[in-house]
């Protein structure tokens, strides 16, 4: 468990670093353009085009999205950790948590 937990903690650290890089890039681009920071996020579908156009809002949005995704990665990593340890009960329990998280997101959309 310990080795895998350490790996999960490294993945989390990397995710946060990526989020920070995108957010800082967005702030720098925003300051360079001389306008205030954007007051809305970019929809998921238009992220790619926004990024290629160096739109500050797209960089800030992607940074926030990566940050929001980290707990999902955290829980998924733990399912893998329990599976490798052959702790079936906890694989199931953690999978329930992940399903509830995802169901919440889907229900919230509706």
């Amino acid at each position: 468990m310990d080795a895998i937990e350490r790996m999960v903690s490294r993945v989390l650290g990397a995710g946060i670093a990526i989020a920070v890089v995108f957010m800082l890039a967005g702030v720098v681009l925003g300051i360079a353009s001389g306008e205030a920071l954007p007051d809305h996020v970019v929809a998921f579908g238009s992220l790619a085009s926004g990024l290629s156009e160096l739109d500050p809002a797209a960089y800030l949005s992607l940074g926030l999205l990566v940050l929001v995704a980290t707990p999902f990665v955290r829980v998924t990593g733990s399912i893998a950790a329990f599976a490798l340890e052959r702790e079936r009960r906890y694989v199931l329990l953690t999978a329930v948590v992940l399903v509830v998280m995802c169901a919440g997101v889907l229900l919230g959309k509706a």
Partner: protein
Amino acid sequence: MAVIIGIVLVAFVAGVFGSMLGVGGGIIMVPVLSLAFGVPIKTAIATSIVCVIATSSMAQSSFAARGMTNMRLGMFLEVATTVGALAGGITAVLVDGRVLQVCFAVLLFYVAWQMSRRRGDVVPAEGPVMPSVYYDPAGGREVRYGVHALGLGFVLSLAAGNVSGLLGVGGGAFKVPIMNLLMGVPLKATIATSNLMIGVTAATSAAIFYGRGYVDPQWAVPAALGILAGARLGPRLAIRLSARVLVVVFEVVLGVFGVLMLLRALGVGV
């Protein structure tokens, strides 16, 4: 620009205390954003939820590396918390919000009093349930413990998840005393595990808020950056400080939460 720097600083402080104690810090960010910076309440809540995730993930990268997070306990109680939160709507119909706020505040003061009465951490007792071990640098020794009173902890987590969803308070302020006082989990493992749970609970709402456009980068980004910096420092303090000092800080923070909650019940706009 001054506004951005102000938010970064406030978020930094919230990040330090939130991650050090496993309570998130959302309850501080919401009133500061809405009262001091005039942020609309929904945007303030969305920002604070992003902050809770930032606190949780950043703190986890420190605590998990130390083996302090009890993943089994965290996932077990997370089921209770989420189910409780889903049932929040039922409670909202049955009980008046103000009554709930006053009860919540009284409970916070009671918990703070209970913790101060004991003056320190639980004596870790080994057991067969979810056993765990971590090295405590402050005590210079390994701490071994098992989890106790699993059923009671589960039921109370249901209740905590239920009310915390209603009041917009991340349940951390109750998860910590439930695990520590009732389930016999040493304080540092409690704080690490609570930090894990608040992020998991917040992630779903954050994704929903993002989809609905309530996450506003001009507030959320400076707040997240400040929180991340603070939550890098907080766990280091928690790991090094003695449990006795952490208990005192926790009591003070619970007291502040209680006062904020009473003010809210009395209709002062926080």
